[in-house]
């Protein structure tokens, strides 16, 4: 069976001119906004809660619940659409915004109406300049048509939308770093609590959602929350865009129903491995998800939030990166660590120093200047990063790196020995356990160590 393609968000995605208001409206666009404005905000929220839709940005937190955390009252509230999309392997939001910007705008307006926000922002990564231009044009069209601005569609609601371009920093995808960046600061994550829903942008309650999440809002209103909940599995409702990349035949974005079998995704949609190769392993949900070897068992796994979590990884942003037997795990590991070292904001010490140290050790491994003992240290460093950082960027490096060592240790060890040979260092010294902190104790003299 071919996995589902183009079910909801991707329906007619390639229709020419879909990015214009005219075509979008012809296809029923902005009807859901009209419908929402006739409902009470609470009713919209009820639909969202009933749909069970979970955030598509990475954490998979129930969207309706997050909306319900926003306090009632007349203070300035904000809605921010997270279009930073910098997680390696993820490129779904780009295609959605480029081709169907009005759906996002409609979702944002309805979301803002639901929580009582008067100002909303799309925080789009700076590299997506051309997409931002498309959004800007769409926002201008929407404003001209009275969907945005004061008294939208003759109601007494004011909702404004500004497209804010970032300037190149992965960490700004993290919601609190995004807020700081939007406030014109360095994109450092904030200490939580307070959570953005209580104190976010400019200190006001703020709802932050991913592009894909917000695009589901009009869809849910259209279908009804209960109907939407019928798609997918019980805890992973709806469809999901997966961005498939790496060593597969047909990379690209595909829309699947959550719960689709992994094999169907990797073979039916992505066309399986390149000619003459076999799959080795994958990142199931972006480069921060723990790597899993692509065993038969894994191929049978339904692709949804809970099944992947149970198997020891995560769905994340739905970015599938696959690599095959021609690829060395050490290279993937190094690229991963390098990326996170480069993107760590530097605010908290475990992430800043831990990523830096891990990358340096991997460089040493690549240079043939390491011993298998270094693998123990990497694992130990990763375990000391996990859970101890200010935000989860540190974990995002530690999880894949330690999973690679866990699953492919023999390959790492063989690599180390081979590289040592190549570099002329000879076989590694007998292992000394440097993996655990010894506390103050006798130091080995160089002679002893040798």
């Amino acid at each position: 069976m071919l996995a589902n393609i183009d079910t909801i968000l991707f329906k007619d995605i390639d229709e020419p001119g879909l990015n214009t208001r005219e075509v979008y409206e012809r296809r029923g666009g902005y009807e859901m906004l009209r419908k929402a404005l006739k409902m009470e905000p609470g009713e919209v929220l009820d639909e969202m809660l009933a749909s069970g839709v979970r955030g598509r940005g990475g954490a998979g937190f129930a969207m309706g619940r997050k909306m319900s955390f926003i306090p009632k009252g007349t203070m300035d509230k904000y809605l921010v659409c997270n279009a930073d999309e910098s997680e390696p392997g993820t490129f779904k939001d780009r295609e959605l915004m480029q081709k169907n910007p009005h759906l996002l705008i409609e979702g944002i307006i309805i979301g803002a109406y639901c929580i009582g926000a008067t100002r909303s922002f799309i925080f789009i990564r700076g590299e997506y300049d051309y997409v931002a231009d498309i959004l800007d044009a769409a926002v201008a069209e929407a404003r001209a048509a009275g969907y945005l601005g004061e008294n939208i569609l003759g109601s007494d609601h004011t909702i404004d939308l500004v497209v804010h371009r970032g300037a190149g920093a992965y960490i700004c995808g993290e919601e609190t770093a995004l807020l700081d960046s939007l406030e014109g600061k360095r994109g450092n994550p904030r200490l939580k609590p307070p959570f953005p829903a209580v104190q976010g942008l400019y200190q006001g309650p703020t709802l932050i959602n991913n592009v894909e999440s917000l695009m589901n809002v009009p869809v849910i209103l259209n279908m009804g929350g209960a109907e939407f909940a019928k798609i997918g599995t019980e805890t992973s409702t709806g469809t999901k865009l997966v961005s498939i990349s790496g060593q597969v035949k047909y990379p690209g974005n595909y829309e699947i129903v959550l719960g689709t079998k992994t094999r169907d995704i990797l073979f039916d949609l992505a066309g399986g491995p390149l000619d003459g190769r076999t799959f080795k392993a994958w990142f199931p949900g972006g480069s921060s998800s723990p790597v899993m070897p692509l065993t038969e068992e894994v191929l049978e796994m339904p692709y949804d939030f809970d099944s992947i979590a149970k198997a020891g990884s995560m769905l994340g942003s739905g970015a599938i990166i696959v690599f095959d037997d021609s690829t060395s795990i050490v290279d993937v590991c190094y690229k991963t660590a390098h990326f996170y070292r480069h993107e760590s904001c530097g605010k908290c010490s475990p992430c800043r120093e831990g990523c830096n140290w891990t990358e340096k050790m991997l460089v040493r491994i690549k240079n043939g200047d390491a011993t298998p003992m270094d693998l123990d240290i990497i694992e130990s460093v990763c375990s000391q990063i996990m859970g101890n950082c200010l935000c989860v960027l540190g974990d995002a490096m530690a999880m894949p790196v330690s999973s690679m060592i866990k699953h492919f240790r023999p390959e790492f060890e063989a690599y180390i020995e081979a590289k040592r040979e190549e570099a002329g260092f000879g076989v590694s010294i007998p292992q000394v356990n440097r993996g655990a902190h010894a506390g103050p104790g006798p130091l080995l003299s160089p002679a002893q160590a040798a």
Partner: protein
Amino acid sequence: MAIDPTKIKRYDHGSRVPGWDESADLTKDPAVVPDPATTYVPEPVREAIEVLMGKYPDVRSAAIPAMKIVQREHGWLSPQAMEQAACVLRLTPAYLVAVASFYDMFELKPKGKNDVYVCTNISCSLLGADGVYARMKDEMEGDPDFNVRAFECLGACEIAPMASVNGVYVGPLTEDDCAQIREDLKEGREVLPDKQLAKRKAASKHWKR
């Protein structure tokens, strides 16, 4: 010998920010908020930044877009460019430089005219990005027309290995495309029209199976 001390580049910190390893210049005055009475800001720049400032509840939000404006105007974020932006935003230039140096897309040293960002992240490197990057550098490095940089994931892994050429995404690239990109840019032509991502259909349509 595990580490060869002669290979440790002391002070080679790889900073994008000049002056990181120098003493402050004690003959300079402290860099306070530039006084509008003594800071020249071209009228269009001032106006563009002020329009931005009006878009946000807090003017500081306009800092990043404002720096994009002056970067475009000056080619890079020269001290003078920073002072102009700081003057209009009523911030200190240090505030701006702290922000600018945090983000990859701001250039704190003079740079070549055309930005060529080659993605060397996981998905692209699985399909040969490192080779493309090396070739791109061979083709363009040293030419003041080009600013070649290895970039982290640019969000277009379906066309891996890819590059962003002045914001236009192109891929999948072969090493031989590098020369073509160079040509196209030199001639002021559209870059690799057939490989532009913006023209690509959704994957299920693109791959005619």
